[in-house]
């Protein structure tokens, strides 16, 4: 896999789903490419289909139009080469300890078995600083710790790409900031590729190396931006993004 080919290609993807009353178009002809070691952020207000888009990349949903390709192969089903980290705290199996949760992921997917799985699990649990809690059940952990387990589990699988669906949205502000820092330092260590969904502009700027801005109803690509490298640039970028989203809202307000 050279650096001259994208890892993930999302090509003119339209996503539709049915509610009991309506056929909803979540995204309309979205294109983007994710390169290895990108921290690619999908940013947009609620209703822009960013989570739906992530689920489609995860293989949980087939596009009605367009293609999603990972390493050139068409994405059709969920699989361990694209590990999801969800927002919900109940994503850990409650009947397994922290260690067993990570080991189970490795064994159930057939990545590793036995001792190797145990060792890999220990390594990544150490990495997210949960060594002391390896034998605790999920219900004994705080929200932030649960999310760290989910991240450890995702990383332990060493997937092609880590898909994170607003993983810190349900955390309190302090924990959230700490988790963002931790995620970045984890990334420094292994430079995994991550596709990160958020509706928070500061989070997108902090986490992302590249930001895809989506407009709502249906989700369409509005801009693709490089992230800031200095605090002043970050302020400026935040302003620009806010302006783009804000302008959208005014337009909508006038239409109503």
């Amino acid at each position, binding site marked *: 896999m050279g650096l001259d080919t994208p890892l993930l290609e999302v090509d003119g993807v339209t996503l539709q789903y049915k509610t009991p009353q309506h056929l909803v178009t979540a995204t309309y002809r979205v294109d983007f490419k994710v390169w290895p070691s990108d921290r690619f952020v999908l940013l947009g207000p609620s209703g822009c289909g960013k989570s739906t888009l992530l689920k489609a990349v995860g293989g949980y949903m087939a596009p009605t139009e367009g293609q999603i390709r990972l390493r050139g192969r068409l994405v059709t089903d*969920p699989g361990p080469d694209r590990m999801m980290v969800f927002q919900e705290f109940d994503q850990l199996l409650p*009947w397994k300890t922290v260690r067993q949760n990570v080991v189970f992921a490795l064994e159930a997917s057939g990545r590793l078995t036995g001792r190797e799985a145990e060792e890999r699990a220990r390594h990544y649990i150490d990495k997210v600083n949960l060594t002391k809690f390896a034998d605790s059940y*999920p219900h004994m952990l705080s929200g932030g710790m649960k999310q760290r387990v989910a991240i450890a589990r995702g990383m332990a699988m060493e997937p092609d790409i880590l898909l994170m669906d607003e993983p810190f949205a349900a955390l309190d502000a302090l924990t959230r900031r700490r988790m963002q820092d931790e995620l970045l330092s984890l990334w420094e260590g292994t430079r995994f590729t991550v596709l990160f969904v958020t509706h928070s502009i500061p989070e997108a700027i902090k986490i992302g190396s590249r930001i895809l801005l989506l407009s709502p109803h249906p989700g369409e690509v509005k801009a693709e931006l490089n992230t800031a490298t200095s605090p002043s640039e970050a302020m400026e970028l935040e302003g620009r993004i806010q302006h783009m989203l804000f302008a959208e809202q005014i337009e909508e307000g006038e239409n109503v």
Partner: protein
Amino acid sequence: MSSVVHRLHSAPLDTTRQNPARPEFIRQDPVGQPTTVVEKPLSFAERLYNQAWLRKLAILAVLAVAWEIYGRYLDNDLLFPTFSATVSAFLKGMADGTLPARIWGSLKVLLMGYAVGVVLATILTGIAIASRIGTDLLETLTSMFNPLPAIALLPLALIWFGLGNGSLVFVLVHSVTWAIALNTHSGFLSVSRTLKMVGRNYGLTGASLIRKILIPAAFPSILTGLKVGWAFAWRTLIAAELVFGVSSGSGGLGWFIYENKNMLDIPNVFAGLLTVILIGLVVENLIFQTIERKTIGEWGMLT
């Protein structure tokens, strides 16, 4: 609330008034007064009182004493034997082997009916989660048969299966199946979408997804179903034995009670009832509660 609002409104707004100047302070060490207890073990009596089983045992003792006193006061073994007479009848029955034989007679039939019921319920829920029409089938069947007391089927069972264990097993299966199927199915339905997605993320599908994710996730409901099914089965069995234990060969506990009533051996009737209670207690409070504590209790899934 209203008084607060009132006071807020009535207070004259004085913008010139200033709060007194207060110095900032930071405490280096917590003051930690020596008289404050940080942590201290409870007294022995308090700890004893915190044991639920001990409190319940005390209640049982009080009830037994009350029973004994009333029995002695009545002094009529035909109507209401004393606690001691019941216990001695129970011990005698246990010693000479009649009670254990009757218990085994009941449990054998019960386990047979329970096992068949579990298998049937598994098949039914299997069909129900496999397809939408299967779900409809299960829902229709359970809503139809669950309110039907198993005993009501007994006359029919007698015609179909005769005066043997076959009829008993039939009513037991009826009493067990619906409770378990209903609970298991609703357990599967309540498994969170996130967990199912996690399972599929690992590449699990079909049977392995059910076995490794859905069944453990639905285990609290499944266990409830098994518990309810057991309770139904136990009550149904004793009742069914009372109605037609007469001709079913060896007979179980229900028949033991009925038989002794006919012979006006009331202490033995009480001993039979006591046995029914004891078995119910042991299974529900020891076996099922232990399973519950070791599984969903430890997993934090107890509701």
